[in-house]
C-alpha cells in the first residue's frame, strides 16, 4: 500500500516541478559552474557532507547571488573546458580560480578581478639554492596545470631556458611528484603553492614571483549587462569588507589585495587589469601551435606503435598459455584477461602511475606504454585465442601424423593460419588504440588530444584546434587502415 502511494507522491512532485519550473518570471537561481575535482580551495566537496561544495568561489558565488536576489546553484564542469561550457550557456557564470587572459576577454564577458595572485616556483628543500628561477632549470622537468597562465610561462621558458614543461590535470599530483623526484620544480599560483608545500614535506616556495595574475568570473558572450551588475556587486563587497572577510576566512588575504581594490575602485571603468600574454588571432595562434601539435602527433604514434607491439607479444603469449597451458595457468590467465578487460583503462593508468609510485616510480611515458599494452594485450589475446581455435582440426591432425611436435605445428601451421583470421580485428584494435592513447594525458603525457585541448583552452575555441587535431588523427589512421587492407589482400584466399 505504502509503496505505490509514495511513488505516486514522487511522480506528482516531479510533475509539479516540470509544470512550475518553466519560468515566465525572472530566474530565481544563479547557476554557477566550477570543477570540484581537486578544486580546493576554490571549489571542493565538503569533507563533512560531500553533496555540498565549499571554497572561496562558493562564497563569491553566494555573494553575487545575494546581490542579484537569487539562490546560487553549483554546476560541475571540467576545468579545462570551462570556457566552452560557459559560452554554451550551461550556467550563468564560471567561478573556479579562473585566470584573466586576453583570449578570454576576446571571446567571453569577463568580470573585474576579485583576487590578485603571484606565480610561484616550488622546488625541493635541497634544491632551493640551485633552482632559484626557471633559467636555472635547463633540461629539468617543471610541472604545472594545463591551460593556465603558468603553463604559458613554461612554454615560453621552454624556448628561452630549455626547461621541459610537464602538464597535470589537477593541482595535487604536481607537488606529490615533485616530492617523489619525478619533476624538479612546480610553477603555480601562490595559493596552490602554499597548499602543496603544506601537504608535502621537504618542499620550498621561492620568494620571487615569476608573474602576477588575477582571478575573474566568466560569462557567456553577450552577457554584458549581467557582467556589469556583478562588477557592481564585487566593487560594493570590496568597499564594505565582505570580500576581504571571505579571503581572510580562507587564509589567502595578503597585501596585494588592497592595492588591487584601490586600483579598481579608483577607476570605475577599470576592467583592463590584464596579465602580460599578448593577444593573438586564430591563424597566428594556429601557426604558433602547429609544431607542438606535430610533435604531440609523433608522441601519439610512437606510443601507439610501441604499446601495440608489446600488446601483440603479450597477447600471443596469453592466448598460447590459455590453449596449451596446464589448467592452473589457464585459470590464472583467464582471470587476468577478465580483470584487465573488466576495469577502465583510465583506472589502470592511475594505478600504474600514481598508485604504484610508493613502490616503483615509472616514468610517465613508460607507465602510459605499459598501461596501454597491458590493457590491449587482454583484447589481443582473445582475438588470437579465437583465431587459433578457428584453424580446422584436420590441419593439426595432418601435422601430428607427419610427426611434427605441437610447438612446430603452432609455429609452422596453426599460427600463420590464425594470423590471417586475426588481421582484420587487429587493425581495428590498432586504430582504437591510436585514439585511446589520448587517455594517457591524465598521467602527464602530452599527446595529440591533450596538446589540442591546451591549444583550445588558450585561444578559447575548439573549432580550429578540433579540425587540426581530427586531420592529424585521420592522417595517422587512414594510411594504417590502407596498409592493413593491403596485407589482408595478400593473405587472402577463398575458403
Amino acid at each position, binding site marked *: 500500500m505504502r509503496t505505490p502511494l509514495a511513488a505516486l507522491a514522487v511522480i506528482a512532485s516531479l510533475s509539479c516541478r516540470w509544470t512550475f519550473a518553466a519560468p515566465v518570471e525572472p530566474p530565481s537561481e544563479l547557476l554557477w559552474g566550477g570543477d570540484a575535482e581537486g578544486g580546493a580551495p576554490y571549489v571542493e566537496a565538503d569533507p563533512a557532507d560531500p553533496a555540498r561544495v565549499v571554497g572561496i568561489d562558493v562564497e563569491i558565488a553566494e555573494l553575487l547571488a545575494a546581490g542579484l536576489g537569487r539562490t546560487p546553484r553549483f554546476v560541475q564542469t571540467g576545468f579545462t573546458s570551462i570556457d566552452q561550457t560557459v559560452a554554451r550557456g550551461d550556467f550563468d557564470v564560471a567561478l573556479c580560480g579562473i585566470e584573466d587572459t586576453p583570449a578570454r576577454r576576446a571571446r567571453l564577458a569577463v568580470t573585474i578581478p576579485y583576487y590578485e595572485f603571484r606565480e610561484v616556483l616550488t622546488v625541493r628543500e635541497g634544491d632551493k639554492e640551485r633552482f632559484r628561477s626557471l633559467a636555472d632549470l635547463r633540461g629539468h622537468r617543471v610541472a604545472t596545470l594545463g591551460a593556465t597562465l603558468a603553463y604559458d610561462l613554461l612554454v615560453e621558458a621552454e624556448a628561452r631556458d630549455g626547461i621541459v614543461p610537464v602538464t597535470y590535470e589537477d593541482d595535487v599530483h604536481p607537488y606529490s611528484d615533485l616530492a617523489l623526484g619525478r619533476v624538479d620544480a612546480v610553477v603555480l599560483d601562490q595559493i596552490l603553492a602554499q597548499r602543496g608545500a603544506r601537504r608535502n614535506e621537504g618542499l620550498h616556495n621561492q620568494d620571487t614571483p615569476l608573474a602576477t595574475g588575477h582571478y575573474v568570473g566568466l560569462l557567456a558572450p553577450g552577457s554584458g549587462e549581467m557582467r556589469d551588475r556583478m562588477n557592481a556587486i564585487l566593487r560594493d563587497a570590496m568597499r564594505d569588507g565582505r570580500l576581504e572577510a571571505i579571503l581572510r576566512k580562507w587564509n589567502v588575504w595578503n597585501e596585494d589585495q588592497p592595492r588591487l581594490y584601490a586600483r579598481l575602485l579608483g577607476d570605475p571603468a577599470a576592467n583592463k587589469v590584464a596579465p602580460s600574454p599578448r593577444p593573438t588571432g586564430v591563424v597566428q595562434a594556429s601557426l604558433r601551435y602547429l609544431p607542438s601539435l606535430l610533435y604531440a602527433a609523433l608522441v601519439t604514434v610512437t606510443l601507439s606503435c610501441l604499446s601495440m607491439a608489446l600488446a601483440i607479444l603479450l597477447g600471443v603469449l596469453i592466448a598460447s598459455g590459455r590453449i596449451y597451458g596446464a589448467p592452473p595457468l589457464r585459470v590464472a590467465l583467464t582471470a587476468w584477461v577478465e580483470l584487465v578487460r573488466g576495469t577502465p583503462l583510465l583506472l589502470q593508468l592511475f594505478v600504474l602511475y600514481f598508485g604504484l609510485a610508493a613502490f616503483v616510480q615509472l616514468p610517465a611515458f613508460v607507465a602510459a606504454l605499459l598501461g596501454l599494452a597491458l590493457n590491449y594485450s587482454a583484447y589481443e589475446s582473445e582475438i588470437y585465442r579465437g583465431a587459433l581455435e578457428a584453424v*580446422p582440426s584436420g*590441419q593439426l591432425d595432418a601435422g601430428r601424423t607427419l610427426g611434427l611436435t605441437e610447438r612446430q605445428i603452432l609455429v609452422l601451421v596453426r599460427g600463420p593460419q590464425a594470423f590471417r583470421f586475426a588481421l582484420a580485428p587487429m587493425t581495428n584494435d590498432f586504430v582504437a588504440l591510436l585514439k585511446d592513447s589520448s587517455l594517457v594525458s591524465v598521467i602527464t603525457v602530452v599527446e595529440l588530444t591533450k596538446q589540442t585541448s591546451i591549444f583550445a583552452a588558450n585561444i578559447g575555441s575548439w573549432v580550429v584546434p578540433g579540425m587540426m587535431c581530427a586531420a592529424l588523427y585521420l592522417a595517422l589512421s587512414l594510411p594504417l587502415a590502407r596498409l592493413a587492407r593491403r596485407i589482408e589482400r595478400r593473405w587472402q584466399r577463398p575458403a
Partner: protein
Amino acid sequence: MTILSVEGLEVRRGGRPIVSGISFDAARGTIVALMGPSGAGKSTILRAMAGLDPVRTGTITIPRPIGMVFQFHHLFANMTAHKNVWLAQVHVLGRPLAEAERKASELLGALGVGERAAAMPHELSGGEAQRVAIARALALEPQVLLMDEPTASLDPALRGELAATLRRLAAEGRTIVVATHDAEFARACAHRVLNIEGGRLPPLR
C-alpha cells in the same frame, strides 16, 4: 612377412564403443581394404592406427613413421604444394632443405603433379590435392600408408588411375590400408578386403 598387426582394438568416444574386437594383420607389399558403409568405424580404425585417437584396449603394432592420407587431404593451407611435401622432411627428419626440396619435386613428378608444385592448396583440384597429399605422406618414406576414403573426391576415370598408383606403390614394397565404401575400387586394388559392420569385424573372411 607380417609388417603390421591390430589385436583386439577397441576405441570409445563419449563412453560409447565406436569399434571393438578388431584384429587383423597385413604382409609387406599388400593392400588391405577396410570396407563398410558410412559410420561403420573404418575411419576410426585408421585414426587409431595413426595415433590420432586414444586406444581403449588392444594393441597396434605398426612401423613408424606412418604415411596418412586424409579424406579431405588436409594440405597445410598456408603453404604451396611443394612446401607441404618438404616441410616434415626438414623439421622431423632433419634433412637439409635442398635435399628435401629435390625429393619433394621428385615425388610430385612421379605422381603427375610436378607442374603444380608452386600452387597453393586452394588452387588444386580434388585429384591434384590427393596426389600432393600422397606425396606428402610418402616423403617420410613410411613402410605403411593409411588412406581414408581416397575415392570420395575423384570421378570414375581417376579412380582407376588411383588404383594403379596404389598397386605400383605396393609393388615397391609398401603396405597400404585403405578405408573405403567403394566396393568396386576395393576389388580393383586390394589384395584383401575386410568388411566392417557396426564397428566389428565378422569372423568369416
